[in-house]
């Protein structure tokens, strides 16, 4: 494991913001970190990056405890925590030079990270002239500056337009292919599902579930499936009347059903016996369904 959170606990006054959290981030993974607003995501990430001290437990990065070694444990770690803020009166390049000077990074990396984040044309402009999206990209550039083995990104697509989001998603994919482990929190479940190999969900500071993405989707209690049938209207009418089918909607000859996973074969049998031809049953559980089944639909992500 490149990063381990062991019994991580943090109080804000009497409120437990993070409650005995255990996480294990495998080397080379793209690890999604999900939770509703106020669930303790940012507090956890800040404890991982030595911005906040835990009240109990510890974060271990590459075998070094952050509690014990402080910022020294962050050697080989790049991080972007929430909004990317820089010295606005200085250029993007000067800001990166300052950061490179801090940890002895070769200045040659600056051109590379500016190029990589699409800022090479604007690197010499003052940060105050940047859009929010450009600042966010500069934030990713500074996280990549020291050629990290582990990249911790807290909401990296914040402030980016759809094409910017796609660029970041692609960049994460490329970096992952280069062997960099990426720990990313995001409120965009679809995005996490697309890019992550692993995921963890926390709620009220507690870990609800974690593991490989495929396993999470497969083991979800709230199973969503697409059934291709000869008569979609009849299928909808039949399945909607069952109390273990939570939701049912039809479109273009197929029906999307939200149901108890254990009853899928019974549903198919019922349809066949009712004269409906079933041509395919395709599992369509998304991370959103997993999330909502674990947390509840009332919680904003």
């Amino acid at each position: 494991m490149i990063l381990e959170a062991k019994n991580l606990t943090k109080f804000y006054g009497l409120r437990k913001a993070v409650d005995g959290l255990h996480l294990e981030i495998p080397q080379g993974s793209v690890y999604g970190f999900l939770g509703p607003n106020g669930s303790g995501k940012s507090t956890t990430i800040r404890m991982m990056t030595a911005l906040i001290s835990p009240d109990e437990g510890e974060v271990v990065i590459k075998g070094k405890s952050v509690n014990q070694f402080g910022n020294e444990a962050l050697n080989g770690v790049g991080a972007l925590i929430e909004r990317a803020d820089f010295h606005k009166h200085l250029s993007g390049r000067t800001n990166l030079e300052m950061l490179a000077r801090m940890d002895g990074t070769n200045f040659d990396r600056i051109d590379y990270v500016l190029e990589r984040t699409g800022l090479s044309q604007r690197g010499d402009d003052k940060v105050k002239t940047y859009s929010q999206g450009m600042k966010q990209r500069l934030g990713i550039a500074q996280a990549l500056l020291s050629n990290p083995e582990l990249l911790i990104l807290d909401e990296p697509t914040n402030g980016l337009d759809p094409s910017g989001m796609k660029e970041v998603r692609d960049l994460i994919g490329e970096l992952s292919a280069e062997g960099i482990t990426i720990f990313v929190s995001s409120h965009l479940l679809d995005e996490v599902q697309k890019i992550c190999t692993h995921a963890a969900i926390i709620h009220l500071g507690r870990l609800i579930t974690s593991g490989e993405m495929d396993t999470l989707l497969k083991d979800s209690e709230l199973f969503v499936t697409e059934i291709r049938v000869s008569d979609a209207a009849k299928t909808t009418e039949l399945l909607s009347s069952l109390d273990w089918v939570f939701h049912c909607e039809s479109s273009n000859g197929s029906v999307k059903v939200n149901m108890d996973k254990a009853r899928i074969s019974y549903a198919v049998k019922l349809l066949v016996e009712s004269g409906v031809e079933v041509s395919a049953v395709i599992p369509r559980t998304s991370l959103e369904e997993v999330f909502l089944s674990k947390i509840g639909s009332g919680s904003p992500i």
Partner: protein
Amino acid sequence: MFGLIRNEMLVISGRWRSYIGFIGISVLMPLILWGFVYGSENIHQEYARELGESFMVVGSIINAFLATYIIMNALWIHIPFLVALAAGDAVAADGSNGIFRITLTRPVSRLKILTSKLIATYIYTALLLLFCALWSVGIGSLVLGTGDLIVIDKGILILSREEALVRMALSFAVAILVMFSVATLCFMFSAMVNNGIGPIIGAMLIIIIGYLVKAIPLDFFDRIEPFMIVSYFDVWLDAFRDPIPWSDIWNKLTILTLFSVSFYGIAVYVFLKKDITS
């Protein structure tokens, strides 16, 4: 460490607030010196009255050295404010601007980062005082010329032009060390909060209260005076005594250093424990 200090100097030089002190001194000094040229009759008469019984005064006693000495006496309460303007932002600004989320997630110790900020604040303070000295003595020499420096404090001290220059350099060197303690006081407050105004107000409040305690002749205030940092601020005046009271200067500077070390110690404790939540 040199790289970190260089970074901090870049940041200080980019803040408009850092230039207020320099602009203020640039405007104020010529104005005061112009006042000496056209309206120093009172000072002249006062000096003539003090010296008249023992000396025969020929020509003008007002020159660049005397003007600088008088200006330093008058501005001594205001210069800490100019120092505090930069020191207040030293740590707090990075907190309020969200810069710590970037800098404190790098493999560099918080102690190093904090120390580099303090050294940069000291460099700024020293530059401000040196600018004040050069501007005052430099412009004063052009406008008023140089000559003997006559100091009337505890008795009358007449210093030759060469000796006056040495004493002036010594007084500014000591003044820089005094202002380091002001900078450290403000720096300590800056490490505690996330806005640059609070530390300036906090530091100035302590200085103003200190001056009040010194000014009001009460027994109780006399007892607490040795524990007030401002009680040692006038050490720069010792450079104009004869003979120079090196022992007094050393003692006062040692006490000011102890104050600074204590302030820095508190700043380190607070900063190392500080949770970066903004």
